């Protein structure tokens, strides 16, 4: 099992992706899409809301995001209008959005009065509340949750610590404090602060936070015979596609469903390994501590929250960009689709000129299912031979660190941090001059990319499979 539990909302999202792909294949997306909420949300579908009508309204918003459109900017638009022009999808805007109708059912009151309240004379809570939300009932303070602004003043003022902050699941997991409540007490994501790590999507029990998908656009591209499309598969892909599905079979199937080329992003990672270790040596000579730049979430967090350390970021492009750049250099018309476990890469791709689309493993498996292919039954294979063992190790935390140490022949003292919380700790120490490394590999996800929000299997199992796959490479690093 992956770190990401497969709840009923997750299943519904995956079923939706499969349906959309099937409609693309049947070429009836525009005609049929308005009926999809009714078709997929029936009165016996497991549900979270009062009635199937509300469930369907939310589902329509989910469909908009699955088509790559913003739910926030397309409130009163019908689905078929969006479906009739897939390439207007505003993928560049927020990748992660809150579906407003879905969020209002989060039952959590942010501030609650506990039994430690003694009804003291001072009533500091009552006096501090700017919204007059606190009343005293039966010798105890009581917060009128309809009035509460979630400002937290009462909790800070209470001398007995009787008022507790009870944070929402999404707020709790967001390490960069990008989620706040708005006046209607709905979660709001600050696009500038958000590093698109995807944690809140996984954490929300109601599936009220979602990431936009490019699944229909990619399906369209691979169905088009007159366009060339390449699949760039992240180093973490090994083992994500099913228990007995080999990397070689994945490649065969991708070519079979219409990709014209399949390349390991570990190929770009090989070049990043060489370039970044060279940069690390150069930095060492100039007394500059180097920070890795492969994880876009780590990178964006530094730019936002540690501006003093911005110049320490490696100038080397990420493996995704490096691989895509080479493909586009030889064939500028080819569509490039990065396939990985990552939501942050969706934003990195949108900001780049060389990566056209990003799919998560979850989305790709839904796509393959839409093509009615059962990977476990496929016996054909296509050889994969794009990268050395160095590039293949970028998938897990500590991988790049090991590569840099090995390539610098021990000259570079490298360290690593996995998960944004640990990254923040190391960066804070670095800022204070309290660190003892020359190079830091930072990854926003626990365990590295194998623990990404779009991953399918247990990171420990994934790591073993990748290590074997890396050892199997007989390519030398040039």
């Amino acid at each position, binding site marked *: *099992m*992956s770190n990401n*539990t*497969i709840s009923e909302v997750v*299943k519904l999202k*995956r*079923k939706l992706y*499969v349906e959309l792909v099937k409609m693309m294949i049947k070429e009836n997306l525009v005609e049929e899409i308005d009926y999809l909420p009714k078709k997929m949300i029936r009165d016996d579908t497991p549900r979270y809301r009062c009635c199937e009508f509300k469930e369907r309204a939310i589902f329509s918003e989910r469909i908009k995001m699955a088509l790559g459109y913003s739910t926030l900017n397309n409130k009163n638009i019908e689905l078929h209008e969006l479906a009739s022009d897939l390439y207007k999808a505003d993928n560049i805007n927020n990748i992660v959005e809150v579906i407003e109708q879905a969020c209002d059912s989060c039952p959590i009151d942010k501030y609650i009065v506990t039994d430690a309240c003694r009804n003291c004379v001072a009533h500091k809570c009552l006096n501090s509340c700017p919204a007059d939300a606190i009343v005293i009932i039966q010798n105890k303070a009581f917060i009128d949750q309809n009035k509460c602004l979630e400002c937290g003043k009462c909790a800070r003022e209470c001398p007995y610590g009787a008022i507790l902050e009870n944070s929402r699941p999404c707020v709790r997991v967001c390490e960069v404090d990008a989620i706040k409540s708005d006046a209607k007490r709905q979660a709001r994501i600050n696009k500038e602060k958000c590093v698109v790590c995807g944690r809140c999507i996984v954490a929300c029990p109601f599936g009220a936070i979602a990431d936009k998908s490019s699944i229909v656009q990619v399906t369209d591209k691979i169905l088009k015979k007159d366009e060339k499309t390449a699949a760039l598969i992240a180093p973490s892909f090994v083992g994500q*596609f*099913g*228990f*007995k599905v080999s990397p070689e079979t994945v490649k065969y199937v991708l070519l079979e469903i219409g990709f014209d080329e399949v390349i390991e992003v570990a190929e770009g990672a090989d070049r990043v390994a060489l370039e970044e270790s060279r940069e690390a040596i150069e930095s060492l000579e100039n007394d500059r501590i180097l920070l890795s730049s492969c994880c876009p979430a780590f990178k964006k967090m530094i730019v936002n929250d540690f501006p003093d350390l911005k110049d320490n970021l490696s100038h080397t492009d990420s493996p995704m960009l490096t691989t895509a750049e080479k493909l586009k250099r030889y064939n500028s018309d080819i569509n490039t689709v990065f396939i990985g476990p990552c939501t942050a890469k969706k934003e990195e791709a949108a900001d780049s000129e060389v990566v056209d689309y990003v799919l998560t493993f*979850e989305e790709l*498996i*839904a796509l*393959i*299912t839409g093509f009615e*292919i*059962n*990977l*476990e*039954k496929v016996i054909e294979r296509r050889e994969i031979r794009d990268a050395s063992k160095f590039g293949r190790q970028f998938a897990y935390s500590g991988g790049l660190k090991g590569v840099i140490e090995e390539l610098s022949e021990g000259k570079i003292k490298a360290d690593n941090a996995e998960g944004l919380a640990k990254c923040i700790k190391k960066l804070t120490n670095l800022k204070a001059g309290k660190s003892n490394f020359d190079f830091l590999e930072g990854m926003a996800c626990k365990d590295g990319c194998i623990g990404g929000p779009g991953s*399918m*299997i*247990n990171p420990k199992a994934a790591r073993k499979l990748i290590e074997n796959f890396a050892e199997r490479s007989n390519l030398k690093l040039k």
Partner: protein
Amino acid sequence: MTKKILEICIGTPCYLMGASELIEYYNNLESRIKDKIELRTSHCLEDKCEKGPVIKFDDKLYFDVTPERLSKIIRKKTQ
């Protein structure tokens, strides 16, 4: 005592709907119950892919199986 057979479909449609959570559930069963069950995996169980995850336990098919449901099914039949 003959073991009861638990067949879990790991075909792609069932995998997408969470078959791996069922395998994980089986792996973590207490040995008292696990010893009474033999696990097999299947690539597809009677083409019921639309209703995945699909399992077969003691010769009976079950659809839309979650770890919680699997727990009930197993416990009821291994008493």
